[in-house]
C-alpha cells in the first residue's frame, strides 16, 4: 500500500536547514557555508533514500547497527589521539561518531522496547538502561558531556512511550536529582521530604525502599566524593566537562551571547549586520552559539518563527508516533523526536543564559556535517514510517 509521505516534516526541516545555511554564511562566511551545503545535499539524498526503505528492515538490522556504533565509539576512545577524542578523520572530512551513536541507540532501544509487550517493573528497565547507558558512558569519557546527556531523556521518553508507567521512571531516575540537589543541603532535604511523601502515598513497598535507599545513598556519597577532591581537581573536572572554556572564563561567553540576543530587540539588527557576531564578541558563532547570532540579526521576530518551526516539527513527529500502528515504528519516532527536541531546547537555553553551558549543536542549523547527516537519517526514517503508518 503506497501512501504519500508527510509533507510538513519535509518543509519544516527544509526551512530550518536553509535558515542554517543563511546563518552559517552570516557567521562563518562563504567557504564554510559551501561545505555545509555539500553536507546538506548529501544528507538530503540520504534522507530521500531512507524514506524509501521499509521500516521493517531497520527493525532487523538495529542490533547490528548498534553494535557497530558502540564498537566505533570504543575504538576512538582507545585509538583517538586528538583530545578530546570526538573526531575521526576520513580523508578530508572529519566525522563525529557520537552523532551516529545517538541514532543507533534510538534504533536499538526501539528494537528492544518493541519486543517487550508489557513494561511495569524496575527489572524491565535494566536492559534499556544498559542499551542507553553504555554508549552514554563511552561518549562521556571522550569527554563530551553535551552529547552524553542526551541519552537520558531519550531513554526516559522512549520507555514511557513504550508503556512504562511515568512515576516508575521518575522513581528509577530520582537518584540523579538527589545527586544534583545534594550540593545544597536545604535543596536536598526539601527534595527528600517531597519524594518520601510521594512514595508514601504510592503505597508500594519496593518503590519506597528503592527510592529511599538509592536517593539517600546518592545524596550522601556525592558531596563526600566531591569534597574529597582538591580545588584544582574540581576545577579540572569542571573544565574537563567544558573544554571550550576560553581564557576569559565561561561567563564571558554567556554574557556576550545574552548581549547578542538582547541587543537584537524585536526585529533584530538585520541579516549580516550583527555587531556582536561580526566583531567576534560572540563565541562559537557558527556552531553551538549560532542561535545567538540569529537572535541578534532577526530579533524576537526571528526567534518566534524558528521556535514555531521546531514546535510544529515536534508536533508532526509526535502525531506520527501516535498514529503509527506498528509498535517498533511508533517507539522509534518518539525517540527521534525526543533527541531533536531535547537538543533544541538545551542549545537555545544555553545561548539565552537559562541553562549552564554544555556544548550541544542546534539541530539542522548549527554547522557540522555529522550532526546534520544523523538528523536527516532520523528524518528519512520518520518519512518512510509516515508513508506506511496505517500498516502493522
Amino acid at each position, binding site marked *: 500500500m503506497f501512501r504519500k509521505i508527510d509533507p510538513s516534516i519535509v518543509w519544516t526541516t527544509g526551512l530550518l536547514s536553509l535558515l542554517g545555511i543563511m546563518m552559517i554564511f552570516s557567521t562563518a562566511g562563504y567557504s564554510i557555508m559551501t561545505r555545509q551545503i555539500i553536507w546538506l545535499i548529501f544528507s538530503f539524498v540520504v534522507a530521500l533514500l531512507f524514506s524509501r526503505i521499509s521500516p521493517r528492515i531497520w527493525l532487523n538490522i538495529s542490533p547490528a547497527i548498534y553494535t557497530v556504533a558502540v564498537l566505533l565509539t570504543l575504538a576512538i576512545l582507545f585509538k583517538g589521539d586528538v583530545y578530546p577524542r570526538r573526531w575521526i578523520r576520513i580523508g578530508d572530512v572529519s566525522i563525529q561518531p557520537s552523532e551516529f551513536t545517538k541514532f543507533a541507540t534510538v534504533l536499538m532501544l526501539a528494537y528492544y522496547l518493541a519486543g517487550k509487550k508489557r513494561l511495569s517493573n524496575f527489572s524491565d528497565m535494566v536492559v534499556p538502561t544498559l542499551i542507553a547507558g553504555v554508549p552514554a558512558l563511552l561518549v562521556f569519557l571522550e569527554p563530551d558531556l553535551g552529547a552524553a546527556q542526551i541519552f537520558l531523556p531519550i531513554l526516559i*521518553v522512549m520507555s*514511557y*512511550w513504550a*508503556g512504562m508507567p*511515568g512515576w516508575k521512571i521518575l522513581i528509577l531516575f530520582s537518584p540523579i536529582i538527589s545527586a544534583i540537589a545534594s550540593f545544597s543541603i536545604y535543596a536536598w532535604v526539601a527534595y527528600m521530604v517531597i519524594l518520601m511523601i510521594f512514595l508514601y502515598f504510592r503505597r508500594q513497598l519496593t518503590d519506597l525502599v528503592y527510592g529511599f535507599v538509592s536517593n539517600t545513598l546518592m545524596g550522601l556519597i556525592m558531596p563526600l566524593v566531591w569534597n574529597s577532591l582538591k580545588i584544582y581537581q574540581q576545577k579540572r573536572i569542571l573544565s574537563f566537562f567544558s573544554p571550550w572554556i576560553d581564557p*576569559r572564563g565561561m561567563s564571558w561567553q554567556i554574557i*556576550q551571547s*545574552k*548581549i*547578542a*540576543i*538582547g*541587543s*537584537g*530587540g*524585536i526585529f533584530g539588527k538585520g541579516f549580516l549586520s550583527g*555587531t*556582536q557576531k561580526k*566583531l*567576534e*564578541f560572540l563565541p562559537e558563532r557558527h556552531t553551538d552559539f549560532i542561535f545567538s547570532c540569529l*537572535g541578534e540579526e532577526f*530579533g*524576537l521576530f526571528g*526567534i*518566534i518563527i524558528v*521556535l514555531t518551526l*521546531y*514546535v510544529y516539527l*515536534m*508536533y508532526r513527529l*509526535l*502525531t506520527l*508516533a*501516535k498514529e503509527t500502528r506498528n509498535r517498533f515504528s*511508533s517507539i522509534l519516532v*518518539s525517540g527521534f523526536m525526543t533527541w531533536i*527536541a531535547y537538543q533544541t*531546547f538545551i542549545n*537555545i*537555553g544555553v545561548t*539565552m*543564559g*537559562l541553562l549552564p553551558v554544555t556544548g550541544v549543536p542546534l539541530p539542522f542549523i548549527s554547522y557540522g556535517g555529522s550532526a546534520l547527516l544523523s538528523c536527516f537519517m532520523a528524518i528519512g526514517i520518520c518519512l518512510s514510517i509516515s508513508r506506511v503508518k496505517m500498516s502493522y
Partner: protein
Amino acid sequence: MDEKVVNFKIIRNIILVLAVVLVGWSIRLQIVEGKKYSRLSEENRIRRIFNPAPRGRILDRNGVEVANTRPGFYVSVVRAAIDDETLSALSRILGMSIQDIVEKSKIEKNIYNPVKIAHDISYEQLSLIEERIDLFNGVEVGVEPLRHYPYNDLLFHLVGYVGEITCEEIEGDPGYVLGDYIGKMGVERYYEKILKGTHGIEYVEVDAKGKEVGKIAEKRSVPPTPGVDVNITIDIALTESISVYLEDFEKAACVCLNPKNGAVLALYSKPSFDPNLFIHGLNSEEWNTLLTDPSAPMYNRVTMSCYPPGSTFKTFIALAALDSRMTVKEKRFEPCLGLYRLGRRDFKCWKRHGSLDLINAIVHSCDVYFYQLGRAIGIDTIAERTSRFGFGKRTGIDLHNEKAGNLPGRSWLEKRYGMNWTQGHIFNLSIGQGDLLVTPLQLACAYSLFVNDGKIPMPHVISRNDTTYFTTNISTEAIETVKNALIGVVERGTATAVRIPGIPACGKTGTSQNPHGDDHALFAGYAPVDDPQILVCVLVENAGHGGSIAAPITRRIIEAYLNSLDHADSLTSAPSTSNVQED
C-alpha cells in the same frame, strides 16, 4: 481513553511549556532588558577615544613662555587583550615591574578600554615597542601633548606643576578621563579650568580583541579645543636675578610686588624642585624622599611658611600707636641700656641705644623702646590695628593653600596661656617675635599700605586690570610719619646696605628669632619712594641679621628691576613715538 493519546497529550504539553519558557525568556532579554543589552552591545563595539587638548601656555608679563606644551609618546594597554608574554616584554622595555603595570591598568574598570601606563617614553623604548606591535596583544602607543617647563625649578612654587589625575580628582567630573593631567599646585592648579581645554572625542569600532577595525560613521568625532593661555604678572628676568642673588643660601623666600596694584613681580622659594619630573610620574619612593625632605622643597615659603617677622613688625606697632595717639610721636620712654628688666626677666636689645624718640627708634630698630611702646598702647590696640594690616588673615592671592599666620590677641593668649599671660607676651609681640607668625607675602602686602595711602591691594599672579583694595583706616599723618622713619632706616639706620645713589628707597630690616637654629634675616621695603615701582620682601633662613644679609640682596633686586624698566622704556619709546606720528 487510549493510553497512547494520554501520553501524546502529556508530551505535547511538555514541549509547549518548554517553548513558551524559551519565548518568555527571549522577550525578557530582547524587550524587557533590550535597552540594557543594546547599550552593552554598543559599549562592546564603540570605543570613545579621548584626545587630550594641549594645555594653555603660561606667559610672563613680557610674553615669555614659562610653561608650554611638547609632544610625548605614551603606552597604553587593554587589560582584556594583554597576555603574560606581552606583559613581561613590556615590563623589560619600560623598566616597570609587571605588578606596577597591572596595578596601573586596574584603575580602569572596563577591561576593554585602554589605560595609559607610561607617559613620555624614550625614542628607544618607542622603537622597541613599535617593532613588535603586531606580536604585542592589547598594547598601543600614541602621541599626547605634554607639559614642559623651560625654566625647570625656577618657578616651581608659583607656576606649580601638573600630574596624572587621581581617582578622587576624577570623581564626578565628566571633563576628565583617566590618564589626564591636572594642575596640582600653583597657577596650574588655580587656573586649571582655563588652562585645561576640552577633550576631543573620536569614536572607533573595535573587535573583541580590542583592536580598532574602523571609524564609526554615524557618530561625528570632535577635535580637541586647546586650553587658553594665561598671562601672569611675573617678570621672569627678575626671578632669574633673584635666584642668582640667593645662590649662596640653602633656604630662602622672596616676593616682589608692584606695590600700587598688588601684581606679583617675582615669587621665589628655595629649595625648589623641577616640575618636569612630575610628567613621568614619581614612584612612591621618590615621593617619599620629596615629602620627607627636611628642607621641604614642596613648600612655597612665600605663602605657606610662617615666621616671626622680627623688627619688620615694629613698623606696624608704630603705626598702631600713632593712629591711636598721635602724640606718641614725640614720646620718649626710659633710655635703652641694652636690656629692659621686667620682674625677674631681662628683655634684651641688640645695642645700647640710649634715649630715642619714635622715629629714631624705628631707624635704629631699638627693642627697648618698642617694649615700652607696646606696653603703653596695650594688647588690644596692637591686635585690632595690626589685623587691619592683614596680619592673621590670608591675603587672598590666587594660589592654593595660603597660610593665615597667627596674630596673638587677648583671646588667643588667654586660650593658650590661661589668665596668667604676662606683659612679656606684649613685649615679644612688640618686636615681632614669640607667637606672632606671618608669611613673607603678608608682610609684603602690609608694606604696600605706605604706597596707597593706607590701602592694601590684594596680591595677584594673573594679569588683570582691576585691583581690589582693603582699607586700613589709618590716619594719613601716622602713615607719613612712619614712612619718613622707613626712609631714615635706609638713609642712616639699619638698612644702609639698601641705599642706591639717586634712587630713594625705604623699608625695614628684621631678624626673626628661630628656636630651632640660626636667626632668619628679613627685609621689607620699596623703591623709588616718590614713584614706587617695586616692593621687595626677602627672607633668608638661618642667615643672621636682616641688615647685613637681606638688605644687600634687596638692593640688588631693586637695582636689577629698575634697570630693566629703564631698558624697556628706552626700547619701547622710539617705536611708540613713530606710531603717534602715523596716527
